[in-house]
């Protein structure tokens, strides 16, 4: 009930929003004999936008389809708005159509034999809503995505971006408990993708519906989510707000998958709680961000540190005799437009570092390299 109030009241208090609205517990799913999701648990608060992020085959889409009821999990429990919709040991499996959700598919799944209006009105009609109300609600949803004029046109005549908008209008029109999106932007070109991203974010702000968004595109996940779950091989690799995942990747996989990071391997020189960890790399020492315990080492006993390409700093002038300041050389410079990538040779090997076109370093020129210790993050090896 609190969730209901939450949805309509506009400025929802954060405390109320923290109560789980969708809960997934111990979810395991398989195709034939192959297990694709292993013991996954997470929750979504009312009005929260959660992204499931990971490479193809990581189990993110299957997890979403289990929540929708389109796949039957092998084990686990799924609760939506205090109602158990699936439970393996209580033998509950509420069919898809009774879960009161909505979904946007990667292929949009716009019915080609109906008009745009009929597509959007479909969910309302199945609910038995009165005709005049169906009309006003469906048109309102179409207006929301700027497709009102095309209401009576055939769905086959639409472009990709328009189909995407109709799919969004359709999923908002039926007043669902939550919206599930399965890679909705992956079939659009880059420019349209970033525009749709903004529009979807805007709809999300307006309606405050709980949203689960599946994507393999880290930019989308970063830009739209309140919280991100990174998945890998059917398991949750890391979970948290976008910036936290970006700044503090837990493993080499997350550091690599999200943003551009340099992975440097070395041996631990000193590890004292509350003080920077000292890592020896190729004869030089890096001060890394302090942490209570050490991450998982590699098979040979060495440890990995992740340094984001944007957090390493290149400067001109003399190099001070402090930790994490080095004399380095620009090896290669690649201009990418809004950004410049340098390949930099330093005592520990090579680093990839992002800079901006307003202050360029020449290839072959000496440079002062600085990595702030809080930006050198020790991560789990594979």
């Amino acid at each position: 009930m609190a969730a209901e109030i939450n949805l309509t009241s506009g400025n929802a208090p954060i405390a109320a929003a923290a109560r789980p609205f969708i809960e997934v517990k111990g979810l395991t799913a398989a195709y034939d004999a192959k297990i694709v999701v292993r013991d996954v648990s997470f929750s979504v608060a009312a009005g929260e936008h959660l992204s499931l992020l990971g490479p193809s085959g990581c189990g993110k889409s299957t997890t979403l389809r289990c929540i929708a009821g389109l796949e039957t999990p092998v084990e686990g429990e799924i609760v939506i708005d205090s109602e158990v919709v699936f439970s393996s040991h209580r033998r509950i499996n509420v069919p898809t159509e009774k879960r009161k959700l909505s979904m946007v598919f990667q292929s949009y799944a716009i019915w080609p034999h109906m008009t745009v209006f009929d597509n959007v009105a479909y969910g309302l009609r199945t609910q038995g809503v009165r005709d005049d109300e169906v009309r006003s609600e469906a048109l309102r949803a179409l207006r929301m995505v700027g497709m009102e004029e095309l209401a009576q046109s055939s769905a086959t005549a639409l472009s990709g971006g328009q189909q995407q908008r109709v799919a969004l209008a359709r999923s908002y029109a039926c007043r669902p408990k939550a919206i599930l999106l399965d890679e909705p932007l992956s079939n659009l070109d880059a420019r349209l993708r970033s525009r749709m991203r903004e529009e979807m974010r805007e709809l999300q702000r307006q309606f405050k519906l709980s949203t689960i968004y599946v994507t393999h595109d880290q930019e989308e996940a970063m830009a739209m989510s309140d919280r991100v779950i990174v998945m890998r091989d059917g398991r949750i690799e890391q979970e948290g707000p976008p910036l936290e995942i970006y700044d503090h990747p837990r493993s080499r996989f997350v550091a690599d998958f999200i943003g551009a990071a340099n992975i440097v391997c070395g041996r631990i020189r000193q590890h004292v709680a509350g003080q920077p960890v000292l890592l020896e790399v190729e004869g030089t020492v890096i001060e890394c961000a302090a942490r209570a315990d050490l991450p998982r080492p590699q098979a040979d006993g060495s440890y990995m540190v992740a340094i984001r390409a944007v957090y390493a700093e290149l400067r001109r002038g003399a190099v001070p005799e402090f930790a994490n300041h080095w004399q380095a050389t620009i090896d290669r410079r690649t201009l990418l437009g809004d950004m410049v990538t340098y390949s930099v040779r330093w005592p520990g090997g090579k680093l990839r570092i992002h800079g901006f076109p307003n202050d360029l370093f020449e290839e072959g020129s000496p440079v002062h390299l600085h990595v702030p210790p809080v930006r050198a993050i020790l991560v789990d090896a594979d």
Partner: protein
Amino acid sequence: MSVAASGAAAPLAPPRHGARRVRAGVWLPLAFLAAGLGYPLFLLVANAFNVGDPQALPPTEYGSANFVSLLEHLDWIGNTLLVSISATILAMAIGIVLAWILYRTTVPGQRVFEVLIAIPYPLGPLVGALAWSALGSPREGLLNQLFTGLTGIAEPLFNIYSVPGIIFVMAIFEAPVAVLMIGAAMQHMDSALEESSTVFGAGKLRTALRVTLPLMLPAILSAALFLFTSMMGAFAIPTMLGTNARFYVATTAIYVMFQSYPPNYPLAAAIGVVLVAITALAVWLSARVLKSRTHAIIFGRNYRPRRLNMRGWTPVLLAFECAYVLVSLVLPLGVLLLASLQKSGGLSWMLSDWTLNNFHYVLIDFPTTRQAIGNSLLLGIGTGTLGVAVATTIAWMVHRSQSAGRQLLEQATMLPQAFPRLIFAFGFMWMVMSLPIRLYGTLYAVLLAYIIVFLPLAYRGMSGVVVQIDRSLEEAARISGAHWGRMMRTVTLPLLRAGLLANWVLLFMISVREVSASLFLSGPGTQVLGPAIFSFWDSGGLPRVSALAVVQAVIILIALAVVRRLARARPGL
């Protein structure tokens, strides 16, 4: 973790509702096919080894004597192979060229020819044989008469009652299947694959031989296999064009043994078993060849292949298309129409020699043909409706359900293709005679046989339709709150509509024209068109049998026109 998960997987029955129906949807058709296909085959084999009383069922004594006496008639098998292989090669050559002209060149008139080239197949071999015997018989044949009249040479131009004549007529009436199957593959091929071959310096011919042909091979092989099996079982053409020359193939020999007194069922069954063994071998061989190749390159999205401008060759290719339409459609229908209007046996162009009495006779006066027309329409409607229903259910189970055994179901569904239809009908006849219920001599027996023999065709068509419908279209309906029934009514069936209709009409047409499968199953009171035309050919005289054939052709042409009309009324589907 994985141990715990797989351990828990076993006891948990999938709670999804409708799961039980999925199971039944797989096992029921499997049981139906096992009974309807397996039992006739079993009876066929049992009879082939029957050396006791030839009429006894089940046999009282077993032995291989029938196969030994078959050794004296190896020419029947040899003739069958000669005719089938040659006609398959000729039909494939015609089909490949026509498909290539239609879909890969800029030769004009694609839309018109696409339709015209497809028609001979539903018209069928019976109409073809009848028409070509009226065109090419050495003395009375229309073309030979014209030749003699024009040149004054008494020697006929050609004799259709010959092995080349049989091969020619069989090939032109089966070629549309090859055009359809190969044309579909050509339309789905990514032309970038060919373009990259030219970029790397290969000429047109080299590209065609090294890239296009290997990519087309799966479609070519499966079309060739389809043609070969149906030609092994071909009956009307070899009988009507070969019996005069005492040229027997396996099917005509079986028919003769069936008709002779006393009928020699065991020997006929032995021939049938040999024929089935040959087609099974062909199926196995082509499966082996296809197994090593992936179809992935060809299927998938619909590419728009680049069409070649053939420049100077365009008139030649256009002439080839016209020639095909002439010999397979215009001349046969023309001569039948002309013959059906005659007062007496000859072929006169004089209006005063014309009459509509023959149509009056077959449509109204003569009860047997009148009844045959009605029965054939009923059977067409029944086979279309039930066949499409069964094929759609099976296609659904195979492509949409996760149920165990769906691959087996698909293989079992395609299995009737390996049986020449006449042979199957022979075994099927024994089955219905041995049943405790009185099925023999009823239309239901014919209906059942039709559904089984046409199932591969219907399944092929319907699975093409089902595969094209994106699964998420249905999932979107479920998630919008529609239960299974509502989803079927509002999304699935409307999307399937065009495909259902097209396949319904296809089944309707090929049941109306069928003769091999109904020859042994229809009898007095259950006459159907194909066998009626056949027995009329024996006894009724050319004008009347032509009138009946024209009636059959008109029914088929109307069905074709209806489906084209309906398809055009709803574009985009």
